[in-house]
């Protein structure tokens, strides 16, 4: 057999262009097809961020960061709408990036031929968190000042070049230099995200969207082959993409608008900036980083980490998982896509989720409280040993066909939720014993309930209880869809009228506009869904 010349992907893309966008099989658009488009949803959140970010750029003054943010919120029409949804669009993007990552981790999508695609994806995770950090810090409120201080500590702790890096990212120490730099880095990182995303997207198109694993017999390479029956991209996929975009936008718009109307939203999830760092009220705000960096923040509280510099603690706790993710496709080269054939990867994925979520929760509950070494050891080793052993035993039993887990991905995901809530209830039980309070008791009961429910769900999934429902799913009749669609569109026109006459002179009224607009976007998505069900039979 003559040895094939190994071409690199760039060479292949250039010399053998593939049809873009590719046609996809029907099951990627029907029920459950959303799981094949988690990357597209990240892209829509990114698009929303770029649009609102450019509007914010018209107003932001680095020389006057906090005052210009407050002025934009309170005295610019629809300012609170743009600012709060920009924040929550970023949150949505971070959450979607994690979902996208975890799904591809569990599915084995990082394996051949998608190694370099995975690599760009991991770099995109870093740039997304970085852009989020700088964006969050630009408001100039007390939380941003706290986050910036931690960032400065980490950057300044880099050996030899620490001060140089500190200057590059955070300026020469003056407030103007700091906020000008943060604005610039926010935009630079977003530009890098855009470029990397383009590369990521072209690789995804070249490698095809990873089909259902059974299509390739649970073996690499999982490549989608158009057998000629695939429907054209236009209009079928275009309509589906618009539907997903409207749903993503709608959720991004609705959540902060509702939160803006609720009293007593904790600072971690408040859609508004907190008080200025020089205000007398600043001391009452816990020193939180953005929630998606809470885990970094907590690990700096570990007893042994405090003898290291913040930089080395970050290298250990954030750097090691990243290195693991970066080298994963080059280490895990087995050809099987089955979870039971790769218990190490799966158990690490579960553990990573548990550590990430629990550390974040820990950071939120006890910000800045030092943690003794034995507790840290317990925190890492107990779930570590338990999950790795458990996954191994289950995988082994599955291989020997002793037990049959029908919906393994869901079972594993629910296991992660169970572990995090178990950790949370453990923490709360401790807290309740030390300083009894009604709040802790209620929270404890709630987390215990979540733990119990998810345990029950894991068992139910393993026994195939939920699979029956999918087969029982029956679409409505076409007439019913037509009537529902008419009703939805009629209410859309009514809501449009309502939000067109709202005078945006207060944050309250602007939030009502935001809710109305979010509902409008969701209605648009729902009508498209019904259109596809009725006309395309999807």
């Amino acid at each position, binding site marked *: 057999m003559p040895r094939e010349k190994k071409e690199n992907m760039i060479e292949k893309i250039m010399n053998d262009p593939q049809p873009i966008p590719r046609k996809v099989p029907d099951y990627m658009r029907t029920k459950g097809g959303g799981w094949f488009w988690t990357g597209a949803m990240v892209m829509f959140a990114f698009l929303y961020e770029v649009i609102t970010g450019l*509007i914010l750029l*018209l*107003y932001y003054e680095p020389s006057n960061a906090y005052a210009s943010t407050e002025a934009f919120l309170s*005295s*610019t*029409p*629809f*300012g609170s*709408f*743009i600012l709060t949804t920009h924040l929550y669009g970023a949150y949505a993007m971070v959450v979607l990036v994690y979902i996208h990552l975890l799904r591809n981790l569990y599915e084995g999508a990082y394996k051949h031929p998608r190694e370099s695609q995975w690599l760009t994806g991991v770099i995109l995770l870093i740039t997304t968190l970085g852009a989020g950090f700088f964006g969050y810090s630009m408001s100039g409120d007390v939380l941003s000042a706290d986050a910036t201080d931690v960032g400065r500590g980490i950057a300044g702790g880099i050996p030899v070049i620490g001060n140089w890096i500190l200057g590059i990212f955070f300026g020469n120490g003056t407030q103007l230099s700091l906020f000008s730099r943060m604005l610039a880095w926010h935009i630079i990182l977003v530009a890098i995200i855009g470029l990397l995303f383009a590369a990521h997207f072209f690789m995804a198109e070249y490698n095809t969207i990873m089909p259902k694993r059974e299509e390739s017999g649970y073996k690499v390479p999982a490549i989608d082959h158009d057998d000629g029956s695939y*429907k*054209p991209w236009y*209009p079928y996929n275009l*309509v589906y993409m*618009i539907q997903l975009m*409207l749903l993503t936008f709608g959720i991004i718009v609705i959540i902060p608008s509702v939160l803006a109307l609720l009293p007593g939203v904790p600072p971690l999830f408040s859609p508004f900036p907190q008080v200025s760092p020089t205000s007398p009220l600043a001391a009452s705000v816990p020193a939180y980083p953005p929630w998606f960096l809470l885990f970094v923040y907590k690990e700096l509280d570990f007893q042994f980490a405090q003898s290291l510099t913040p930089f080395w603690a970050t290298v250990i706790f954030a750097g090691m998982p990243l290195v693991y993710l970066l080298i994963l496709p080059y280490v895990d080269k087995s050809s099987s896509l089955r979870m039971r054939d790769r218990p190490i990867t799966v158990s690490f994925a579960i553990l990573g989720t548990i550590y990430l979520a629990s550390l974040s929760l820990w950071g939120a509950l006890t910000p800045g409280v030092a943690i003794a070494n034995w507790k840290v050891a317990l925190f890492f080793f107990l779930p570590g040993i338990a999950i790795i052993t458990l996954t191994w035993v289950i995988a082994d039993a599955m291989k020997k066909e002793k037990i049959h887990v029908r919906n393994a991905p869901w079972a594993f995901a629910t296991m992660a939720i169970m572990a995090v809530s178990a950790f949370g209830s453990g923490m709360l039980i401790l807290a309740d014993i030390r300083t009894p309070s009604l709040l802790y008791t209620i929270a404890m009961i709630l987390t215990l309930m979540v733990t119990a429910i998810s345990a029950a769900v894991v068992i139910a999934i393993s026994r195939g209880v939920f699979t029956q429902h999918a087969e029982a799913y029956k679409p409505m009749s*076409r007439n019913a869809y*037509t009537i529902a*669609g*008419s009703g*939805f*569109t009629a209410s*859309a*026109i009514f*809501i*449009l009228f309502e*939000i*067109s006459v709202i005078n*945006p002179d207060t944050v309250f009224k602007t939030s009502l*506009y935001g809710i*109305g*607009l979010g509902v*409008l*976007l969701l*209605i*648009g998505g729902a*009508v*498209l869904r*019904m*259109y596809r069900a*009725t*006309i395309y*039979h999807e």
Partner: protein
Amino acid sequence: MSEKNNGDEPADKDRRNFFKFLGVAAIAAGGIGALRGVLENVSPPITAAFSAFPTLLLYSQSGKPISTNDLIVNNSTIVLFDYPLQNEPNFLLRLGDSNNNDVAIEPTTVTIPATGKTFQSPGGVGPHNSVVASSAICQHLGCIPPIIHFYPPSSSSYPGKVHCNCHGSTYDPYKGFAVVTGPTTHPLPNTVLTYDSAKDQYSVSSLVGPTIYGHSSDLSGGNPLASSSYTEISTLTPTS
């Protein structure tokens, strides 16, 4: 094309078109709703620095109120003061004839060529009724001193006129800064001065005529002055 219609019975064409209409209408509603917010947001709110014109005493740079003797008849140096905002300079002129004797400036009716409307110029103040003031921002395209300035009656070019060297607009300070030659279509806004003969002091109290160039109103579009009781004069040497 045939693939698109596959599986759709002809009777469903109406349903398809109706549903298309529903989809387009629902998305358009979302688009219009979002557009309203964006369009209203990107236009910055304009806040007036004052609700009414402040009355300010004219100060010299040495920090004292100016008197008639501080003003030179037909001064070839440009004398300016900011009013009512920091970025709104005004000429301060003591007008005379070609022998540098004070000329009394009578209030007069000034026509705005662009609109055909008229306004009443305030006329000169001071012991000889010869001190006048106007916005120093050219009404054509906003050039400022020293490019626009007063040419004394003894000057060889544009004698006794305010001329802008950007595009050649000329105004007559003796007749309420009326338009003499284009391209401007608006006279300079006249700055209203008052004279306290007992103390020999000058104050500025308002503007009449067109709105200052580049501002949506005379009182907005800039930062207020450092003091709420006086405005300082400054001088510039003409370039030509």
